[in-house]
């Protein structure tokens, strides 16, 4: 157990906030995306592509290669130079400590990227970086998986027996 999160209280995010972020997003920059198909980031990337998102990998060790059909960039700056159009979410698959520098890069590039949300993956929490991002006008989600949240809020995660926490008598929409 290496994560500082062990001793931290669980975070709570309003379902409507997360739902809105996922609905208003078309493109996600996935920092730390792995070309190895059994890694969690690769799982998440493939899933989100299947839901209609464009996911652009950022990983210096895989730069120049393609992951799941997408060109991999060295850094967010490198990605911004390529001007792929608005990247609404910067999704961070790095350790809590390493996430700080990625968040600062996202803050510096937020206008060029069109970024609105900094999202740190399950097990990733960096309160200082989160504060800086919020002060810069970005929405911050930490310690959550984009794939799991999508599956939870749009009704798929219960298919695997997972408690979504959703209680509603409204007929669900078929797609986000």
């Amino acid at each position, binding site marked *: 157990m290496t994560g500082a999160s062990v001793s931290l*209280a669980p975070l709570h995010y309003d379902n409507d906030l997360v739902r809105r972020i996922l609905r208003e997003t078309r493109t996600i920059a996935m920092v730390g995306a792995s070309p190895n198909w059994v890694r969690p980031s690769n799982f998440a990337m493939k899933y989100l592509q299947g839901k209609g998102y464009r996911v652009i990998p950022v990983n210096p060790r*895989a730069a120049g290669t393609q992951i799941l059909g997408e060109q991999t960039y060295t850094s967010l700056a490198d990605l911004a130079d390529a001007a792929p159009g608005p990247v609404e979410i910067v999704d961070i698959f790095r350790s809590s400590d390493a996430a700080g520098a990625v968040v600062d890069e996202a803050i510096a590039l937020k206008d060029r990227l069109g970024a609105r949300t900094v999202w740190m993956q399950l097990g990733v929490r960096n309160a200082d970086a989160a504060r800086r991002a919020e002060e810069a006008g970005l929405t911050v989600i930490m310690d959550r998986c984009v794939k799991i949240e999508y599956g939870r809020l749009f009704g798929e995660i219960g298919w695997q027996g997972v408690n979504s926490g959703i*209680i509603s008598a409204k007929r669900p929409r078929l797609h986000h």
Partner: protein
Amino acid sequence: MSDNDNTGNAGNIDTSGNTPPDADPSFGFATRAIHAGARPDAVTGARSTPIYQTTAYVFEDVDHAADLFNLQTFGFIYSRLTNPTVAVLEERIANLEGGRACVCSASGHAAQFLTFFTLLEPGDEFIASRNLYGGSITQFGISFKKLGWTCHFVDPRDPENFRAALTPRCKAIFVEQLANPGAVVVDVEPIADIAHAAGIPLIVDNTVPSPYLFRPFDWGADLIVHSTTKFLSGHGNAMGGALVESGHFDWAQNDKFPSMTKPDPAYHDLTFYETFGDFGFTTKARAVALRDFGPSLSPANAFYTITGIETLPLRMQRHTENAQAVAEFLEAHPAVAWVSYPGLKSSPYRGLAKKYLPVGCGSVFTFGLKGGFEAGVKLVESVNLFSHLANLGDTRSLIIHPASTTHRQLSEAQQIAAGAGPDVIRLSVGIESVEDLIRDLDTGLRSATAD
């Protein structure tokens, strides 16, 4: 190419929370018993959960099929693994227990097998309370031995007995709450502490209380098993089992659980804890144990169980009221030697019951007749309204002589230790008119004691 998706691995997963992420605490138990997991059908608007009576599901294309087989997306392949009706029941039970995820199975025994197959390697050991359903004692003590798993049974009345029985190969502690047959109230909290100090999970069989009366995760349990055949389903008409995980146990804290933390050759070297985090245990139980051994719950049985759970709070209230009245009647009856029901002032478990079961002590308990074995047999045969059968948790009142049925495979010493000695009668009090139940027992007791 080395990996860079270093979230620190699954060891970073937050194990400190008390509720599943974003679970809405503002809905009460009775609301969740009806709605959890069961939104209207997205395609048709059907309000009651449809019975998806299908074995398989059409893939969108080859790539979608590959994603499903690789566990990269959520969805349905084959009803041995997942089924939309069964999934509603799984989410319902996970929600009511305050857990992260659930996998259902054909019976409670199957749920126990899925649990231990996922936890143990050949040569591993675990500790169990000696006060268990007789079938569990046989499964753990004899059948599991053939798989190379050893169970050590201890008296649960002193939690320290569990610590004393720990061995380096022990991978879990297992207890049953309101342990059948004699409604033994187990002091779960200190036993959970002993398990966690040893780096192993506490498993609670919560069949008899149901989550309406007892919430094991609130007291430190890590896994819960159910026979849903009993109070959850509630009508004596559908077999089923469930395994629930809290999501708070850190499987990577030691090297005891390679099944969770090492790449799995049965799944193209996937590491389940790293990939699925706080629902990794049930995912592994489903993707490997359920896949490879096949004790799946049928969608029809899931439907009956879902329907039953909708009235769980109402039924448990009535079960508990009736049981209290019947226990008080028996305790005052001249033919009765003793009554073992934690709701009675005479019960040694009164204090523990107040702590763990503040709403009520369920409706399964035992009593002994002054006339011993023969009077017991006569009673079972002379009652009219109580059904003589081997089950519990039915709307109907049930009666059984454990020593000749559920605990028959045990030695007499084991029977006595389990609270199922030759003179013992077990009741599962139903939700009929309580005065009818009392009259029936009174008539039976008169003929059982008449010369």
